[in-house]
């Protein structure tokens, strides 16, 4: 006979190797989870590929910022948008093998909400959820996503075929290599740019906050964005760089991360400057749309 508020949300897309929903990783216990994963990953790989895990090569690959997905684009409201700043705080990038593509979820859930969950299964190839974690780049990162090629670190991957990646949103802190008075501290994202429509322009700026520990699961990993190529093989001869990419425009559907934002309507005082204030509709739309895995991928460079 409990009366207290429970805290037991289920996360249907949680990776199998991580703790259950009741212990959904926050930034701190995520590291514990990763540590466990690091220990059991070879076993998982062995189980997956049916070979001696000791024989699986451990391949270090450099991970960099890939700004290729931040191009000028037009949102659904007809604004031509150019980003001038897009910084994001995240931690613990994981690389996964196996897992289930959305189509599998459709079959598993049957005709109910399963269909609801996967209507874009075939429009969005490569989003595998729930695979085994066999590679990782641990640490905290505050990334300027316009700084193409900036080195994030080195990921350690077991030799196998990768089908996806995950990362975890966090909030920037003064310990993340940013200035003590950097305004991103306490926030997940800082975003700024220019929006133009009908000869008028608006500059915009805002901080977007994702819940600490929110995981983005199922980033595609592939050399090219295509409906055919949804995996990438890593072995001891691999000599590539992995690029962490954010996509302002969904590559498979006519959707952008800024859809629904009407800059003219948001410019209450008509001065041409729009602050995307937390709790207001434009900020809420960005918060929601920038947590969708359709807007991220891992490129091979």
């Amino acid at each position, binding site marked *: 006979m409990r009366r207290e508020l429970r805290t*037991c949300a289920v996360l249907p897309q949680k990776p199998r190797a991580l703790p259950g929903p009741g212990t959904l990783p926050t930034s701190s216990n995520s590291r514990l989870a990763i540590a466990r994963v690091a220990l059991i990953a070879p076993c998982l790989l062995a189980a997956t590929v049916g070979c001696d895990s000791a024989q699986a090569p451990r391949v270090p690959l450099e991970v960099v910022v890939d700004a290729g997905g931040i191009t000028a684009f037009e949102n659904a409201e007809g604004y031509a948008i150019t980003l001038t700043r897009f910084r994001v705080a995240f931690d613990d990038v994981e690389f996964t093998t196996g897992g289930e593509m959305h189509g599998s979820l459709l079959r598993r*859930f049957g005709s109910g909400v399963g269909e609801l*969950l996967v209507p874009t299964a075939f429009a969005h190839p490569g989003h595998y959820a729930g695979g085994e974690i066999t590679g990782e780049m641990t640490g905290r990162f505050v990334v300027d996503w316009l700084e193409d090629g900036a080195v994030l670190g080195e990921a350690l991957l077991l030799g196998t075929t990768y089908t996806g990646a995950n990362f975890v949103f966090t909030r920037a802190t003064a310990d993340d290599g940013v200035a003590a008075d950097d305004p991103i501290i306490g926030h997940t994202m800082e975003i700024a740019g220019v929006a133009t429509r009908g000869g008028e322009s608006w500059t915009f700026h805002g901080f977007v906050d994702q819940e600490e520990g929110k995981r983005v699961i199922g980033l595609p990993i592939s050399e090219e964005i295509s409906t055919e190529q949804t995996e990438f093989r890593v072995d001891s001869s691999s000599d590539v760089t992995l690029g962490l990419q954010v996509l302002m425009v969904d590559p498979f559907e006519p959707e952008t991360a800024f859809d629904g934002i009407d800059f003219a309507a948001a410019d209450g005082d008509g001065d041409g400057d729009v602050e995307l204030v937390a709790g207001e509709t434009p900020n809420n739309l960005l918060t929601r749309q920038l947590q969708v895995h359709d807007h991220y991928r891992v490129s091979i460079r």
Partner: protein
Amino acid sequence: MKTNTILVLMTLSAPFATACAAEGEGTLETRIYGEAFVEEGIPADAFVDGWAVTFSSMLVAVDGVSADGVEDPGVYVFELTEPSGGEGHAVGTLVVPEGPQQLDYRIAPGGGESLGNAPDPDAAMMEGMGYSVFVAGTATRLSETISFAWGFDTDTAYADCEVVADVPADGRATTVMTIHADHFFYDDLESPEPNVAFDLVAAADADMDGTVTADELRAQDISAEARYQVGSRPIDNLWDFIAAQSQTLGHIDGEGHCEQ
């Protein structure tokens, strides 16, 4: 000589063979329980916005109850608002090897002759409408009252639910499929610490007749809400959000989680 060797080996191995064959079995009694939240209601202090909810009906269709490969063939429909004295409602029994158990079960649209405590007309309604879960009740806050009656056709397999009690050899243990009704009112599909909230549901009552229907929830766009986050799921209305939450109701022995 060869015969003697075989006899010696058989003699020596007999205790081991006996030990293997003598592995004990016991009975796992399965029950289902909506807890006080369903039987008595969800009090206002559980909600962040002051609402309280009482349920006039909460029907669940359950099948595929199994442990250690032993499956209960029954298809059940339970009315969880029926008082159970804190014990939940008896579902069935499984004869399983002694030791720890993992239970699997499914909440899905049922068919045919249903067992369980639901009145026949209700069980027939669940089958006829293709519902796995039906929930009806009333939310109140001061002078405000909002009624709801929603049926879901979701199909959810709850797997590898860790049973708290080990099954003793030649004995019995009980496990309870625990249904968390407050999840219907969670305001986040991914957060480990969502709020229990009703304001947005109440706001969906577009015709202000005091009843929030499925169509009204479908018309409630959540895409610009600060709460009601959905991660990567293509969910943009409150009905689909609550339907997704309806796939998170099942637990084991209170707070225990299952895989899906």
